[in-house]
C-alpha cells in the first residue's frame, strides 16, 4: 500500500533523506528507529506533505497513487494520518467543531454521508470513553491548555475517528508516562487489521513492547541501514545505535 523508493529530500537546501526505500504491505506495522537527526521526522513530514520539505529524487506511491503529487488534505482523505510529535494549539477553534469538520471532509471524499452534530457527538463520546478522555475535552479549544498526555490522547482520538489506512506516528511516545503510552498502543492495536497499516517512528524501544511491529528499520543519516523483525528493536535497546551505524 505504501512504496517509498530512493527518496531524497532537503530542508532549507540541506539534504536530510538520502535514498530511503521502504515498502509497507496492507495490515503491516513497521517501526523506524534511529538516533536524533537521522531524518525520522523529516520522513513523516514528507509523507504528510508539509511545506518546506523538498523532494529532490525518488518516489512515493500510496494505494497506487503518486503521493508526492497530492496536497496534504488530499493525502489525508486518501487515508494518510500523521500523529504529530508536538500537536499545535488552536485558540478559538473548538475541539468538537474541528473534529466534526475533519470527519466530514474525510467522509465526503469517501462518498459517505456527512454526520450531523448529534451523530458526531455520539461517535466521539464512544471513542473518548475508550481513550479515557473526559467529555469536556470536546468543548475546549483544540489542545489549548492540554497537558502533553492530553494532546496525545487528542491525536489518538482524531486517528480513531478518521480511521486512516496508514498512520504515521511521529515519536508519539515522547514525553509520555506509562499510562499514556499504553493508551497510544491500545488505540493503534484497536485499529489493527487488514486495511490498516502504520509506520511507528520512535527513538526508544519502549512503545514497541506494546505495539509489536512486523518489521523494524534503523534509519541513519537519511537511509535505512538495517531491517529486521521485532527482535531488532530489543537488540538496539541493549546495544544502542552506534554499533549498527558503525557496521553500516
Amino acid at each position, binding site marked *: 500500500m505504501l512504496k517509498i523508493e530512493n527518496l531524497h529530500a532537503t530542508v532549507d537546501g540541506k539534504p536530510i533523506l538520502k535514498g530511503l526505500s521502504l515498502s509497507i504491505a496492507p495490515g503491516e506495522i513497521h517501526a523506524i528507529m534511529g538516533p536524533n537527526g537521522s531524518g525520522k521526522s523529516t520522513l513523516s513530514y514528507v509523507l504528510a506533505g508539509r511545506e518546506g520539505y523538498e523532494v529532490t529524487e525518488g518516489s512515493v506511491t500510496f494505494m497506487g497513487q503518486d503521493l508526492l503529487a497530492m496536497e496534504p488534505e488530499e493525502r489525508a482523505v486518501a487515508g494518510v*494520518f500523521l500523529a504529530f510529535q508536538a500537536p499545535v494549539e488552536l485558540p478559538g477553534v473548538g475541539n468538537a467543531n474541528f473534529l466534526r469538520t475533519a470527519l466530514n*471532509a474525510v467522509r465526503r471524499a469517501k462518498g459517505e454521508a456527512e454526520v450531523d452534530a448529534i451523530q458526531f457527538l455520539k461517535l466521539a463520546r464512544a471513542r473518548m470513553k475508550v481513550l479515557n478522555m473526559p467529555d469536556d475535552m470536546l468543548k475546549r479549544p483544540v489542545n489549548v491548555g492540554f497537558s502533553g498526555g492530553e494532546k496525545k490522547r487528542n491525536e489518538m482520538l482524531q486517528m480513531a475517528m478518521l480511521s486512516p489506512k496508514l498512520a504515521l506516528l511521529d515519536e508519539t511516545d515522547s514525553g509520555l508516562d506509562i499510562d499514556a503510552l499504553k493508551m497510544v498502543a491500545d488505540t493503534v492495536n484497536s485499529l489493527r487489521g487488514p486495511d490498516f497499516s502504520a509506520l511507528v517512528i520512535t527513538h526508544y524501544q519502549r512503545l514497541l513492547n506494546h505495539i509489536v511491529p512486523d518489521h523494524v528499520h534503523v534509519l541513519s543519516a537519511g537511509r535505512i541501514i538495517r531491517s529486521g523483525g521485532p527482535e531488532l528493536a530489543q537488540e538496539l535497546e541493549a546495544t544502542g545505535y552506534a554499533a549498527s551505524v558503525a557496521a553500516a
Partner: protein
Amino acid sequence: MTAVGTTGAGAFLARHEGLRARLPGAHLPWVTALREASAEAFRAQGFPTRRVEAWKYTDLAAVNGTVFGEPLTGVDDALTLPATTNPRAVFVDGRFRADLSTLEGLAYTVESLAAVLPTLEGRLGAVARPAEQALAALNGMLFEDGLVVTVPAGVAGGVLELLSFATVSERAPAYHPRHLVQLEDGASLTLIETASGPAAARYLHNPVFEIEVAAKARLNHGRLQQEGLDAFFLSTVYARVAEGGAYDNFTLNAGGRLARNEIHVALQGPKAECHMNGVQLVADGQHADTTTALDHAAPDCASRQTYKTVLAGRSRGVFQGKILVRKIAQKTDGYQMNQALLLSPEAEIDSKPQLEIYADDVKCSHGATVGELDADNLFFLRSRGIPLDQAKAILVEAFLTEAVEAVADEDIRNALSTAVTGWWQRQGVAGGIEVA
C-alpha cells in the same frame, strides 16, 4: 471631465444653499442656526485631506471626486426585509419608512426625526462636534431624517433593530441621517443596526449618532456595516455616559469601497464603563478604517477595546485608537488591543494607538499585532483532510473569536456570526467550521 463645482465640499455647500428653505425644520430658528453653524464648520474643513492628522491613513479623494445626486424617494421594489421577531425601524435611502417598520407596543418611544424635529431643541446637536469632525458638519448641514429613540428611566427596552437600506441608483445619492438615542436613568436597550445596499451602486451613507446614556443605564450597540461594495460609508458615533452607565459598541466593518467607523465616547460620570469591540473584514479593493476616541473624564471608569482586522487581496485597513485620561479621571482602567491578520502580500494595515494621560493613578495599556496565518496551524488542519480554503476560514474565525466573545449581548453575537459567515461566502469560500 467634471464641471467645476459639481464635486467635493463645494457641491454639498451649494446643495445646502439651494435647499435651505426646504430642508426639514427650515421654519425653526434653532434648526436653521444649527445647520448654518454646521455649514460654516464644513466650509472651513471641507473633506479632510491626508494632511489632517485624523485622516492620515484614509484618503477621501474618491468621495471628493464623486458627483452625488439627489437622495432617492424610495425605489424599493427589490427590497427584501430579513425575517425577525424583534421590533424594527427601517430606513430606505436615508428616510424612515413607517410602512416597513414594526414598532407597536414598545415601552419606549421610537420616532422619525423628521416627524418630531420641533421637539428636539437642545437634544439634537447636544453631543456631536461638527467643528471638530467634518463629516458631522456635513451631516448637520444636510440631515433630513433619522431615528429618535428615548427609553424612559428604569425601562428595560430589549432589542431594537435599525435597518438602513440603499436602493439601486444611477445617481450616486448621498444621505446623512442623524440618529438620536437617549437612555434615561437605569434604562437599558440593545440596538442592532444593519446598513446594506446593492453591490454595484455608488452612494454615500454618512450617519451621525448622538447617544446619551444616563446614570446606571446601559446601551448595547451592535453595528453590522455591510454596504454595497461601491459605497462610501462614513459614520460618526458620539456617545456620552453618566455615572455608573455603560455603553457597549460592537461594529462589524465589512462593506463599502471606503468605510470609516469613527466613535467618540466620553465617560462623564464616576464608574461609567465602555466596551468597544470590532471586526473589520476587508477584501480586494476595499478600505476600512476604525477610529476610536475615548475620553475618560471622570474617576473610576473602565474601558476595554478589542479590534481585529482581516485583510485579503489588495486592501487596506486602518485602526486609530486614542485614549485620553483627564486629570480628574483617577483610577481609570483602560485597555486597548488591535490585531490584524494579513491574508495577502498586497494587503496593508496602518495602526495607531495613542494614550494621553494626565491623571497619575491609572491603569492603562494598549497593544497591537500584525501577522499572517500560521503555517503550522494550517498544515495541521489540512493534515486532517480539511481543504485549504476551509482551513483558512477556520483560522480566521478563530482569530476573530476574541473580539466576538467580548460582546456581552447574545443577540449581537449571533447577528455578527451570521454576518461573518456571509462575508466568507461572498469571498467564494465554502464556509468555515461546522458546529458540533
